[in-house]
């Protein structure tokens, strides 16, 4: 399967988690609860980012000539997400934890939209179809899908 379809599928379920967290973060009563809620999202978002980095972005960088700005911007957003999740893991104040959690979910949503608008269409345009399919096979194997 095309790797972009797999990654869009990942966005789909992560959006549902983001919707839920946007509603509940302001109501959380303890730092540990904010951290636990976000730990589940972080496991999904950060593994998703790594696969994009290692499979799509590396492939795109080899094919693009003078259009590296989009990829650099996407990598910077991944780094911002990592840094926000890390700061949340070490937060000790409830207000700070809520603010960091809200920033993480907002940044994840913004990043997914940017990928859907810019990065994924760029990959569809720049990478040959057989490469997108091979990357999809690698994605499926890395995710542990049955039959991959």
């Amino acid at each position: 399967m095309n790797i972009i379809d797999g990654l869009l599928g990942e966005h789909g379920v992560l959006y549902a988690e983001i919707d839920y967290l946007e509603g509940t973060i302001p109501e959380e009563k303890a730092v540990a609860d904010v951290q636990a809620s976000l730990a589940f999202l972080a496991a999904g978002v950060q593994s998703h980012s790594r696969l994009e980095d290692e499979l799509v972005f590396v492939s795109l960088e080899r094919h693009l000539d003078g259009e590296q700005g989009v990829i650099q911007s996407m990598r910077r957003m991944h780094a911002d997400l990592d840094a926000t999740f890390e700061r949340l893991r070490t937060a000790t104040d409830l207000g700070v934890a809520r603010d960091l959690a809200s920033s993480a979910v907002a940044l994840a949503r913004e990043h997914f939209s940017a990928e859907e608008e810019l990065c994924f269409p760029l990959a569809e345009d720049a990478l040959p179809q057989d490469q997108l399919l091979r990357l999809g096979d690698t994605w499926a194997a890395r995710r542990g899908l049955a039959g991959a």
Partner: protein
Amino acid sequence: MRDGGDVESMDIVETLLGEHGVLYAQLDHLEEAIPQLSVNALKAEIEVFAVALQSHSALEDELLFIALEPILGVGSPELLGMRMMHEDIDRQIEACRAATEVTQAQGQLLGVVELARQHFMGEEQTLFATAKKMIPQETRDALGATWASRRGVMRLMLAPEDL
């Protein structure tokens, strides 16, 4: 998205496989984290997990399984089995919510994780393969468009030169 650069179409089976992909990583995270979590932290994690898992099950039920009913039959063992597993997952999530002791909550949550993993593998090996073979591509794409709309994923992806 398939051969021919049709960037507007998304096959429902592939998008649901995509959802499994990231959920597997989150199941791995839970298995590792559960032994260290307090009851409150477990309950905070289970709520996010429940939103992801139950919204995924609802989309499968309402989109893919209904499309398979005319092909396999409403009472087919494959569909009944998968729907029963969705109900089992719902019941185990409820049991986890009701747990008051840490070991009880940890055990219940590990049970949900194991059941979800088995369920995903079962779907990938049987029902998704059947859907790919038996549901016409056009129908799978239409269902993929509905999935994208329900999930809020951008369906119409603009070509870079149009941006």
